[in-house]
């Protein structure tokens, strides 16, 4: 079954509106949506990679001919120059076509990755609800499925980020709240402890990823500020002003230059947002570690 991209938010909306215990049927539908997007994602990624290889071939051939052209020109070899020009003309059409195809394939892959990520997020949300409502230990597969979908989500995000650049900000994913029930056995509590430890591991990964991003942005900010300092040291006291033709039509930009693609958000705002998110993650890790200790103490008391 082909599921259109808009079906994911619709399905999530319907589930949220129901507010009732999640039906297994919905879980099945969402799994189908995920599978469908998985297929589309794989096809789009393969198409992009094929288009990239083709483009790379024409691009390297083009560069090669340009170098030959330069050499022929330097050697005053008119016959060879004309010959290469003709080849370049022929090649330019193929190169343009490959470049255009690459852009299209990249957009398609991007769209497919967005669809798959939305579907996986919806599926994880559903899994969380299911885990919260099921008696612990009654269905150990739930945790495995949760880990499977979470792992896949991180894999897709990482893959698309490496190839297509960062598309979305990191965020904390929903996780089920674990409580000890009066009738939980030691085995059931140990199962919950493993679950909590698993979550801590995931959050620690997220935290170190955030640390890396923050460090990268802070370096960029320091670089930008040093640039600004250099400019200011020359312009502040008119050090660089000399009695020649006055410059005209220049526009002074305020702040960092990262806003090249019109993003109004300056670096310090991006850093502050990621730092806030990392603090939330660390706080959640701390809470989970405390909970693990509580559960371990309680497990020792249970038969």
């Amino acid at each position, binding site marked *: 079954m082909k599921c259109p991209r808009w079906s994911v938010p619709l399905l999530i909306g319907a589930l949220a509106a129901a507010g009732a215990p999640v039906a297994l049927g919905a879980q099945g539908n969402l799994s189908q949506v995920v599978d469908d997007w998985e297929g589309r994602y794989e096809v789009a990624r393969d198409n992009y990679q094929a288009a*990239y290889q083709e*483009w790379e071939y024409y691009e390297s051939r083009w560069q090669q001919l340009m170098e030959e052209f330069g050499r022929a020109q330097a050697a005053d070899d008119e016959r060879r120059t004309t010959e290469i020009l003709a080849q370049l003309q022929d090649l330019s059409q193929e190169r343009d076509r490959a470049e255009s195809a*690459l852009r299209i394939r*990249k957009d398609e892959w991007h769209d497919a990755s967005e669809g798959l990520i939305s579907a996986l997020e919806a599926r994880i949300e559903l899994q969380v609800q299911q885990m919260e409502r099921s008696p612990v230990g009654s269905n150990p597969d739930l945790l495995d499925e949760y880990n499977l979908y979470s792992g896949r989500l991180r894999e897709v995000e990482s893959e698309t980020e490496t*190839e*297509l*650049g*960062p598309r979305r900000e990191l965020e904390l994913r929903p996780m089920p709240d674990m409580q000890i029930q009066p009738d939980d056995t030691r085995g059931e509590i140990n199962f919950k402890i493993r679950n909590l430890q698993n979550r801590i591991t995931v959050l620690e990964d997220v935290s170190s990823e955030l640390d890396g991003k923050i460090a990268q942005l802070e370096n*960029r900010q*320091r*670089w930008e*500020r*040093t*640039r*600004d*300092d*250099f400019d*200011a*040291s*020359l312009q*502040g*006291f*008119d*050090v*660089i*002003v*000399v*009695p*020649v*033709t*006055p*410059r*005209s*039509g220049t*526009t*002074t*930009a*305020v*702040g960092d*230059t*990262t806003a*090249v*693609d*019109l993003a*109004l958000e*300056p670096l*310090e*705002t991006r850093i502050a947002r990621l730092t806030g998110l990392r603090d939330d993650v660390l706080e959640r890790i701390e809470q989970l570690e405390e909970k693990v200790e509580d559960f371990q103490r309680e497990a020792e008391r249970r038969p």
Partner: protein
Amino acid sequence: MRTGRFPALLAMCVGLAAPAAADGQIRLRDFVITEGASLEGYLGNFAAITVPQIDSTEKAVAGVGEVSVRGILRLMGRENQTVDVAFDGGIRQFATGGFQLRNYAPREHSGSVETMYQRLIRSGTLTAQTGARLRSISDRPPLPIYLSPGYDRYTAGVSYLHRGLFDLGVEGEIADYLAPKVQPALDLLDRSSLVVNAGIRKIYRSAAELDRDDYWGLRAFSSYSYHSYPQQGEGSPRIDHALGAGAAFQGRWERLSLELTLEGTRSRSTSLRVEYNAARLNGRADWILGENTQIGLLGTLARKRFIQPDQDALVAGEEADNASILYAELTRHLGDRVSGAFRFGWQKVETNISGAYYTRFGGSFFLRVRPWN
């Protein structure tokens, strides 16, 4: 020197910041205190209309101490609109040597404030900005030490960038040079300007690595400038109409950023003797050498040719025809809040008519502190 100008600038800053501060929106984006010391040498036999003092020396030296404060305040930061105020103020004291008549001790005060409003609209970005810049200098020395005269300059402008591709902007400027009784020639520099510029740009990112912070781009631009000099011209004021065109390359990668701009100007005037064609090449590079070390380079080449073949009179404020400028600054970060920088600079400014020139060269050390980094 007019008094009370700098307090007025400060009052303007406070006036701008107060409404946002009341809303609790105000945020300090950057704040840096700079202290610096320089040693500079000057050579040459240049003459400028606006520097009436004359000394027969062709060699002079200067020791310079300076302190300045600079920062950016975000007055409003909503999802699709922002208001920033950038401010910069400082004082610089010289001790000169090598003059025949007497050694001078010029002191410069400089302050500026610029407000920028940016708004994302459906298909582009609208930017409006106003600025004021005040500068004063006491005990201005004769050449070969060239220091800009004092002035009050006010600017206002608006620009629009459509879909990240096309830009169009208009900017107005009024510059009033501060002429003491003994230096009436400074009034010749008073100027009102209106500049319209338009450009087209394209930003590229490699297909394989779409890191949003790395890019390179090209921009082609053209401009029309109207400059009115009310104190120049006999009977009717001098009015210049200048057409400009140029291209710029800008790129940024993990450890390097590069900017190159080439522009040409064709200036025509109501005063035939000041008509000229000019070209200017500006280059800028920043290179990260290591975890804590960075080097910046800035260079300019400016060339001018007057239309009148027998042009032999100086034009106030534009006495030189050619300029070559090169500055390099090596910065070492000494922690999160402190950095030290060495700056080396060289300038040569010369005329086509008599071979007159001045050269400025020297080295500086700066200590920069960001107390609230």
